[in-house]
């Protein structure tokens, strides 16, 4: 019982990072109807941008403050947006009218390319991410310790999600995005430029992944070129759990997966950490493939 509260706090902190990545999966799935396997690797690139940029920005502004963290995060978001958009342009756009299997294989190829290209460029050894968020304890009782880390992660994630919600539901591009995800052809007949909308979706998704990467690396500072694989897969599972294509669902799914994972690590065994989310995936796909908040889609013949 003593541990329970602590586990929940840790779980929510991890879960909000998963939620940010999951939002990218879910949005891209919404407009393109395919899983961007490379999304987890865009996340990894975000962490490396932070790793290389942080020392420069620190020396330029002097000291590790919240401003450095903010600048690093925005920089990572910009780089990853550019990366996401170019991945879509180079690899996915030429295949848009082809069968899904072709795009799926290309996405897997892109993911492997970023992982092992990253290994060549950054080196395969783990690197220590600079501590951007000063780690002091904010709340400390006999059975609960909350550091600045968890608070910054949770608050940033909530702010980003609110911002995303605003963009998707209150702006013109957001409306266009929802229209495209509802019906490609009808949207383009209404004068919406599909290519712009898809690029914009990649900008949104990739920058959320980059922000998630900076937060993740601040909590788990050891980064390496393969670090995106598991957070990526788990975030995908979170998106499926919440109902793919559904923004609230992705956030909810991320939190559930995060909390579940911390519980398994804390109460059962850390080695089962990675297996639990896959078991959740298999269970949800057997039980309710449309996810918790998803709606059922009928197949057209």
């Amino acid at each position, binding site marked *: 019982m003593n541990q329970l509260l602590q586990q929940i706090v840790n779980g929510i902190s991890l879960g909000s990072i998963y939620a940010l990545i999951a939002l990218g999966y879910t949005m891209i799935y919404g407009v393109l109807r395919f899983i961007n396997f490379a999304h987890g690797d865009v996340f990894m690139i975000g962490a490396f941008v932070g790793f290389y940029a942080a020392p420069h920005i620190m020396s330029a502004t002097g000291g590790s403050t919240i401003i450095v963290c903010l600048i690093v995060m925005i920089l990572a978001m910009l780089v990853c947006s550019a990366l996401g958009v170019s991945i879509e342009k180079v*690899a996915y756009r030429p295949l848009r009218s082809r069968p899904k299997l072709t795009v799926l294989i290309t996405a897997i190829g*892109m993911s492997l390319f970023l992982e092992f290209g990253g290994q060549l460029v950054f080196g395969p050894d783990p690197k220590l991410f600079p501590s951007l968020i000063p780690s002091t304890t904010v709340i400390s009782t006999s059975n609960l310790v909350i550091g600045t880390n968890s608070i910054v992660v949770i608050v940033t994630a909530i702010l980003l999600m609110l911002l995303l919600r605003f963009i998707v539901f209150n702006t013109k591009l957001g409306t266009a995005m929802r229209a495209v995800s509802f019906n490609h052809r009808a949207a383009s007949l209404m004068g919406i430029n599909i290519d712009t909308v898809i690029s914009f979706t990649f900008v949104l998704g990739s920058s959320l992944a980059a922000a998630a990467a900076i937060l993740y690396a601040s909590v788990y500072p050891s980064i390496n070129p393969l670090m995106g694989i598991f957070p990526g897969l788990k975030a995908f*599972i979170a998106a499926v759990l919440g109902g793919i294509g559904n923004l609230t669902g992705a956030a909810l799914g991320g939190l559930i997966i995060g909390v579940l994972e911390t519980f398994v690590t804390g109460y059962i065994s850390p*080695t089962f950490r990675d297996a639990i989310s896959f078991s959740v995936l298999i269970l949800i*796909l057997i039980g309710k493939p449309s996810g918790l908040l998803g709606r059922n889609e009928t197949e057209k013949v």
Partner: protein
Amino acid sequence: MKRHLSKILLLIGLILCAVVSLLQGYIGAYYFQIIIYIGINIILASSLNLINGFAGQFSLGHAGFMAIGAYTSSIITASLHLQPGSPISHLIFIGALLSGGLMASFFGLLVGIPSLRLKGDYLAITTLGFGEIIRVIIQNMDFLGAARGFSGVPKLANFFWVYAVVAILIFFLHNLIKSTYGKGFLAVRDDEIAAEATGVSATRLKVVAFVTGAFFAGIAGGLYAHFVTYINPSQFGFLRSFEIVVMVVVGGMGSIPGVILSAILLTILPEALRAIAQYRMVIYALLLIIIMLVRPQGLFGAGINIKRYFKKSTEPV
């Protein structure tokens, strides 16, 4: 005569395996090892080709089935303390391989049944997840050596056994494709709804494909374990599955000779080009992307009705 052609070819193949295996003392250990790996990779890629290429079910968990076969057969032979070389050891080895294959196909059934409801992307992720679950479970089982690995597997796999399995598998696939099952696979792959409408049970065929593919992957795992004599869970991670997928995609999904050729090529290439060994995975990744962009039927795949498979998507968007 023509009816029995494939059987005769199988017989010739098996005899050839036996003859060549007599010569294995004359081949350098390094080359011999590569030849064995080629054989094992042919089995893996061809069995995945059955699931991915023929039945059209994209699976990313083949290394998981391989792991099950490897561990099952290793437990059997290692616990019996066999002396390699005695005739009885060969018999037991066959038994162990078959049990490894059966165990793997049992798990194939377990994955196959729930994943029938899934398609494309979902199936890929689920099978990938399944492979990871297998790996994690093995890592946590102390009697399997957990993460330390399982050593002391008798070295029973040799040229003959590996290539006999290759010959049997090719014979099997060749005949399967011409059978009603094979036609059913292709029908399900090309258009599942139409296949169902004409009375083909897509569900049953997908399970058959999974179970059979897993069986041979399990046997390949057993052969691998009894060749390297030491296995550990990290040898069967999802990168292994990806490698097998690359072989199938490069060779051409649904093409038996294409996949065999690409399995040979992709096993030799990294060895021949040691200098670029560190670029291997990057090259694999680029191969996947470029082949999908330029030649989705694979490098060698021009055989069966592959063009229809890659026809333009006509479903309403």
